[in-house]
């Protein structure tokens, strides 16, 4: 995807910053809203050039819907991974089989790759050690499959089906 126009990128930054302002103040007081808007306009003017390349295209309803759906999906994945690691810790035989595997991602967007790396690290049992292009090097507590395809299927694909829609 090419770079969006300046206006689109600027407006997108303003909208995102204003949403963050709403979360920060947790208030609908018109004074707060007015100041939030002013500050968003100023901060966005200073920072939009490095913040985004896609601009308003990021706010496509389909992307937003997937982003909202991703939150419970990710939390569920995290809870299951937590229980799995807890089981391995408490089990007397300690059934672990740690190792470093290589995964390939289909994501192209850098922010998407960052989100994927952080999602992998946040779920217990897997840690992203390094990223090189579309290759992820992941430390896995229980290596079920050490081939690139098999590891990707287990680790990155569940997240990717959401992230590739959200980040394009």
């Amino acid at each position: 995807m090419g770079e969006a126009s300046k206006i689109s990128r600027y407006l997108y930054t303003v909208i995102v910053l204003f949403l963050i302002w709403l979360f920060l103040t947790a208030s609908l007081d018109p004074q707060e809203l007015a100041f939030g808007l002013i500050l968003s306009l100023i901060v966005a003017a200073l920072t939009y050039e490095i913040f985004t390349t896609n601009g308003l295209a990021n706010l496509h309803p389909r992307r937003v819907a997937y982003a909202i759906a991703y939150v419970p999906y990710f939390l569920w994945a995290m809870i299951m991974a937590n229980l799995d690691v807890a089981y391995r810790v408490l089990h007397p035989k300690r059934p672990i089989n740690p190792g470093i595997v290589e995964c390939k991602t289909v994501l192209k967007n850098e922010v998407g790759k960052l989100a994927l790396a952080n999602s992998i690290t946040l779920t217990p049992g897997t840690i992203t050690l390094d990223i090189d292009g579309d290759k992820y090097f992941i430390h896995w507590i229980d290596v079920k499959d050490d081939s690139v395809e098999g590891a990707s299927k287990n680790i990155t694909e569940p997240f990717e089906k959401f992230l590739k829609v959200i980040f394009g």
Partner: protein
Amino acid sequence: MLKRALAIIFLLIIGYWLAQGLAGVPFGEDRMLVGQYYLDHVKGQTGAVNAVTAIVVNYRGFDTLGEVTVLFIASTGVGALLWRKKRERTAKTEGSMVLTTGTTLLFPFVVLFGAYIFIHGHLTPGGGFPGGATIATAFLLLYMAFITYEIPHKAFEKTEGIVGMAYVLVGLIGLAIGGYFLYDWIWQDWKLGADNIGRLLSGGFIPIIYTIIGIKVGTELSGIIDNMLKEEVSE
């Protein structure tokens, strides 16, 4: 053994002393009359709900101007100590994809959060100094992630000078209207925000001064970071 016994006896004597001294202080009574004065009058006299901020910026505004000056001198000192004819960024390892992308993503939020802290100085804990430091952290992030990044020096130096003068100007307007330096004319004469204490538009000139301090501290600390991260290069 003897040493240990002596130490214990010594500690007991000191303990007895302290207990004796503190026994004369009535328990639970306010020893600081001036503190109570501030707490009783802060809303009426300054329009701020945060008594600490009101003391720092309003009652002791002149002292705060001094603190800003101290920071300015510290920044100048760093600049003078590290001054060389030609200095450049010499970092060699480019930040990883995670670091650079994360930085570009977080940078606007960190700046906005800094602004949030200093604009709410009269309502919440915080104010210009932590807000400015937060903004400087955003620039530190950029320095860490991009090995060739440098702050826009000209713009930063000008902004710093202008907001520094703006602080003095606010004080001088007070002098012209109310008769003393840093007189809070917005609260005392205009009564702006008198009917909505505790909301954003209250607190007299505290938000204005904290905005000034926030920008000044932010630009100044970014300058210090810039000075410390650059190294001398031979021509």
